[in-house]
């Protein structure tokens, strides 16, 4: 398994377009956060503004890291490198899991850098403007939620990419599903008095991992369980389908 992970790691970092996307993923939340905490009025600087802005803008980074994961798996089918890949490692489950490990770990490290370095730089600006801001709010929960969401989103991206084998379709699905389909479906469920089912919409649950969750919902851990279950289901499906079909 270690050899396969090493191989997949080399693949992921030796394509320039992947690196460009990672740079965008890092730069975007930094830019938004630093501009926000620099330009906002002192009186609007609430105690958790910095972390909130950082985590909210890092949602785009999660999606970009998911796109990198999709390019990693779907590129194999687009350029038919899946054939030499499976020739070198006939155990297809091992290949899929190695891709998920590499993409998820890579995404977690990048997200840690985004949040860690973004927080330090933002805090320097905040401290220079306000004498005493007080303690930040539920920052640990938000940061942990962001890391968890990113990892699960990337795993789901690899699994769905393996199922669809098409970059465009997978990326579209990973954007349309959470941002358009689920909100519409959620609204419909509210209308038909089936509000409880909204908690089981996977990306809705994923987004709750990076929000303050009010009463009457699954809470952060429950939402994490739903989104993790979705990622696990997609992974299991991908393993079965990829194992059966022709490369």
């Amino acid at each position: 398994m270690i050899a396969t992970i090493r191989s997949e790691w080399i693949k992921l970092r030796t394509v320039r377009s992947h690196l460009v996307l990672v740079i965008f993923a890092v730069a975007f939340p930094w830019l938004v956060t630093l501009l926000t905490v620099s330009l906002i009025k002192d009186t609007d600087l609430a105690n958790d503004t910095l972390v909130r802005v950082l985590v909210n803008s890092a949602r785009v980074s999660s999606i970009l890291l998911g796109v990198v994961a999709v390019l990693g798996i779907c590129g194999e089918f687009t350029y038919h490198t899946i054939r030499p890949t499976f020739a070198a490692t006939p155990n297809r489950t091992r290949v899929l899991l190695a891709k998920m490990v590499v993409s998820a770990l890579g995404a977690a490290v990048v997200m840690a850098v985004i949040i860690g370095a973004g927080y330090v730089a933002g805090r320097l600006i905040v401290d220079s403007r306000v004498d005493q801001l007080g303690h930040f709010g539920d920052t640990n929960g938000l940061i942990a939620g962001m890391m968890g969401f990113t990892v699960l989103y990337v795993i789901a991206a690899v699994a769905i990419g393996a199922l669809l084998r098409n970059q465009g379709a997978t990326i579209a699905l990973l954007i349309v599903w959470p941002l358009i389909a689920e909100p519409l479906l959620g609204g419909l469920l509210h209308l038909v008095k089936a509000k409880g089912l909204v908690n089981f919409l996977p990306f809705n649950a994923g987004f709750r991992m990076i929000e303050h969750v009010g009463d009457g919902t699954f809470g952060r851990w429950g939402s994490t369980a739903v989104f993790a279950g979705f990622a696990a289901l997609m992974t299991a499906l991908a393993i079965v389908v990829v194992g059966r079909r022709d490369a």
Partner: protein
Amino acid sequence: MIEVRQLTKRFGATTAVADLSFDVRPGVVTGFLGPNGSGKSTTMRCMIGLDRPDGGTTRFDGRDYATFERPLTEVGALFDAGYVHPGRTARNHLRWLAAANRLEAKRIDELLDVVGLSTVANRQVRTYSLGMRQRLGLAGVLLGDPHTVMLDEPANGLDPEGIRWIREVLVRLAREGRSVLVSSHQLAEVALMADDLVVIGQGRLVEQAPVSAFVDRYADHWVRVVGPQPEALFEALRAGGATVDVVDRSSADVRGAEAAEIGEAAARLQVTLHELSPHTGSLEDAYLAATYATEQFSTRGMPTGQAIAWSQAPPTAEPPVAAPPSASPPGWLPPPLPADRPDPGGQP
């Protein structure tokens, strides 16, 4: 040693490979031939599990490919030189392959040198010509120093020098004791490098034999007869059942009679001969004769100018079918060739 047994692969209602069995011996180059769509590539993909066969087995030195922990050290397979990410460099392509099988990194530089890509190893593959990609593909095949090598159309896109190079590499690999299976449409190349042939048509085995035996069995055989006044001899040969194709006033190609028989007949008739030489068709002739009946999309036998008309209404005449040797008069006629096919250039 590769042993393929009862390999079957279906795509929906279409059977691409049907109950196919053959062996690939170590120490020789085995050419894998068949018309377009005959199932060569599918067979090779099934052999290493890339396509899931519906039945049958393939053993590499007695083992299934899926059981190899480091398969690149056992079997090197190249299916298409295009199976490379265009945004990756050649060196990085070989790096991930090597890493997957725990191969030493120094082997990459050795092979880049062997295939002549050292100076461009850090360029993205998108800038490579097809020939350069073929060389990179071959480097990937040899990365693990495998004892079995399988290549699908390796000479595609190569210039004459490259074709010669790959032929020499494959022959050398075979002489080192490896099992080498090569599919190719370039029959002249196969004739130069292959010792054995596996010929398939519509997914079924047509023939497995040494090249010489295959040519002997399927290619046209004739005797060139040249003399100042051979008409009497030709008449006698025709009367004996031979086919005499007159080339000009002094020469003819005789099928259905051995050179010795013709010589004796000439002596009996006191006909002077200037030439009496047996000829055998090329591997291409033999291949075309062997696979004629199995071709799905054949244009052979279609006279120029009739293609458009035939695309609307098929010809009513039954296409000539290559008859097995047992169907021919013993020691007499070769397998019949399509009547309107140009007379192939033969080899003495």
